[in-house]
């Protein structure tokens, strides 16, 4: 930028420029202030209005909705708790203890599932109404999947920031070819999937060892990072149908485990991308001195590095939590009865033979979006500290 004083002609300014001229450095002209604040106010209205509309519609009844729009509670219409009542208490199994029962059931079934090779415990059937079922499912799946995703992603990001990898390109090609072989064998030749996978895995290790030294070209950390982050480009629709078939083959359809794993993978690129930036920006001296003191890698990671990146970690966790909560496509394909999450339940209310019951739908939508709004507010406190910007710049 040229700092020449003569560049700006202070005398011959247009009226518009004069109006917006700041009175002092770091301040705004009054006209400018009005313009800026009014635009911001308009946009704030634009942001808040749909949410406001959803919330007040959940308190309306049929007449208030169908006879034209009503805008203010107590002024235009009488708020009622009808929609809330119908959704949350009309079903005979809906009551306050429902969520507690469902959590206990989930724990019971998980234990049964884990112990199933050893002892057969019959799984408990859900005893609660749909909305609580969906809510508990959403909560459980989001939280567990987020923890899992952040854990795995942070470890990978840390490793990519501190350890040099040099995978041989040839080995990767062999691996891809073996995958193709497994798929062709299983679909067209009818070989059971576990057999073809086991054979392929064995072949891979054998070939990698035998031919590895002949391969010259290798990839570096940057390539691996790019590969991981670019998984985000993959449209989920490409993988849902094969995933459906895969999960069905191992009898994991309509289970929580399937969705937890899937959500973790879907958001792994984001975690790796964000956390890699934090780790790369940490000064390496701390870790080096810890190493000299004899700490293990994992010890350094857990005790030194993670606490340093706590704000970034928190921001990432919140972001992933929200993304998992909102996820729809995978849930719709991989769940039938037991694992319906909130978005599916809300989507199922989209048609009704009494007209779309807007007020009921809004009640459920409110339950779905209030938690994320709270999480969003929390998240912005981290973002305002410039925590996530570094990743974008990188």
């Amino acid at each position, binding site marked *: 930028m040229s700092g020449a004083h003569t560049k*700006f002609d202070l005398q011959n300014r247009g009226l518009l420029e004069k109006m917006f001229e700041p009175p002092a*450095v770091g301040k705004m002209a009054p006209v400018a202030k009005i313009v800026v604040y009014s635009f911001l106010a308009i946009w704030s209205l634009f942001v808040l209005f749909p949410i406001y509309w959803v919330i007040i519609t959940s308190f309306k009844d049929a007449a208030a909705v169908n006879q034209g729009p009503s805008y203010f509670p107590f002024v235009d219409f009488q708020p009622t708790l009808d929609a809330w009542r119908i959704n949350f208490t009309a079903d005979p199994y809906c009551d306050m203890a429902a969520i507690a029962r469902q959590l206990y059931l989930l724990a019971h079934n998980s234990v049964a599932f884990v112990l199933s090779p050893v002892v057969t415990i019959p799984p408990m059937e859900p005893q609660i109404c749909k909305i609580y079922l969906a809510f508990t499912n959403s909560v459980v799946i989001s939280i567990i999947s987020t923890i899992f995703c952040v854990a795995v992603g942070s470890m990978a990001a840390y490793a990519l920031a501190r350890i040099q990898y040099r995978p041989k390109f040839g*080995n990767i090609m062999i691996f891809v070819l073996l995958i193709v072989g497994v798929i062709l064998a299983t679909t067209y030749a009818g070989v059971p999937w576990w057999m073809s996978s086991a054979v392929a895995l064995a072949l891979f290790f054998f070939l990698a060892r035998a031919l590895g030294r002949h391969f010259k070209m290798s990839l570096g950390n940057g390539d691996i990072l790019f590969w991981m982050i670019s998984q985000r480009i993959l449209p989920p629709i490409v993988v849902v*149908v094969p995933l459906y078939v895969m999960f069905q083959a191992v009898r994991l359809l309509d289970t929580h485990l399937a969705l937890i794993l899937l959500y973790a993978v879907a958001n792994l690129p984001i975690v790796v991308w964000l956390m890699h930036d934090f780790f790369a920006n940490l000064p390496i001296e701390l870790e080096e001195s810890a190493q000299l003191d004899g700490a293990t890698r*994992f010890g350094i990671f857990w005790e030194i590095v993670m606490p340093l990146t706590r704000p970034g970690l928190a921001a990432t966790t919140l972001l992933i939590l929200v993304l998992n909560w*909102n996820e729809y*496509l995978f849930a719709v394909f991989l769940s039938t009865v037991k694992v319906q999450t909130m978005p599916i339940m*809300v989507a199922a209310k989209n048609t009704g033979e009494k007209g779309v019951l807007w007020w009921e739908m809004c009640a459920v939508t409110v339950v779905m*979006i209030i938690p994320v709004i709270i999480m969003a507010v929390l998240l912005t406190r981290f973002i305002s500290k410039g925590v996530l910007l570094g990743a*974008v710049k990188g």
Partner: protein
Amino acid sequence: MSYQTNTSQPGASPAGLSSSDRWREWVDRHAGTFFIAPAVSLILIFAIFPTIYSMVFALSRVRFTGDGLKFRYVGLRNFEKQFFGSSEVHFLGRTEPFSIFGMLVFAVIVVAVLWWLYRSWKTATWVRMLGRSISAAMAIFLGYILCASLLSGNAIGTLYTTLFYVLVGCFVQFVIGTGLAFLCSQPIRGRNFFRVLFFIPLMVTPLGVGFAMRMIADVTKGPFEPILGVLGLQDWVWSASPWSARFVMMICDSWQWIPFIFICMLAALENVPRDHVEAAQVDGASSFHIFREVTWPQVVPVAVTVLLIRAIEAFKIMDLPNIMTGGGPGSSTESMTLHSVYVWRANDMGSSAAIAYLLLILTVVVCASFFNYVVLGQIRKTRA
């Protein structure tokens, strides 16, 4: 994979280690593998493997029978159906008659692309030429479809509906988002309040946004009904005409995604060193000048990155058109993902996978091209 660690070994213990110590040491020596193995395995099993598997679906006719799925290899027939067969108008749009205007524009596009290719011929390596040829081919193909369908006055298909959401949507979102960020980066009070407030739409479940927007856009029961009445538009139904439906869809999508651009651009604008700006102000520059000469060049790298990220997400749009119009009047608001879902519902999994793959190819080529030529170019410029 073979790798080397370039870190020194942790403090070596003398001989006579206990077995648990030895085990710990072995784990630590292979820490590199253990750290990265979970992530790599997850991605391999749940992303790479299904993607390749999906190709098999796309090349087969898949049937549900009493004992599960049966595959019958049919080669490229599912893809053919999208380009030349019964699904062509649905996917590509109507491409005839090809108007004169369309032909002219297409000619211009072809010439421009070929000239760009020729110019890079001299300075590029084989790999780079290959990449550029792919981009050029995609550009020519998309240009052809555009000229033959939209510019010739014909209806467009799901391919271009998706591109509409991506290109026009991202552009609108970027302009408004950056504008908002610029406004917020002024010395105003309550900046954090606005930041929090404007961030909320991004986090709301897309389904919820769809419902909310559907209610609000309803012409008889929505809140705009009196306004429409005043404007004499009470019989206008946005959902009955293809283009108005697409525009409304884009507006609703923008409601949700402008916050993303806003947040990133605001952070970028806040990081512009204040002394440059203040020096320019002291010199008497107008705000507009300051923005154009001082702030914008510093912010461009972030801007194009943000645009790229937004575009990647935009290609996947599905929830909104599904909820608001069920694909629109006819099929006019169907994005390619939605198209694939509807075809899946008809139990034609082969075609569904084929459409999904076409979306993948489109996304990868467009985003990679944008990344290589624009983003990298900007980053190189700033580093220079």
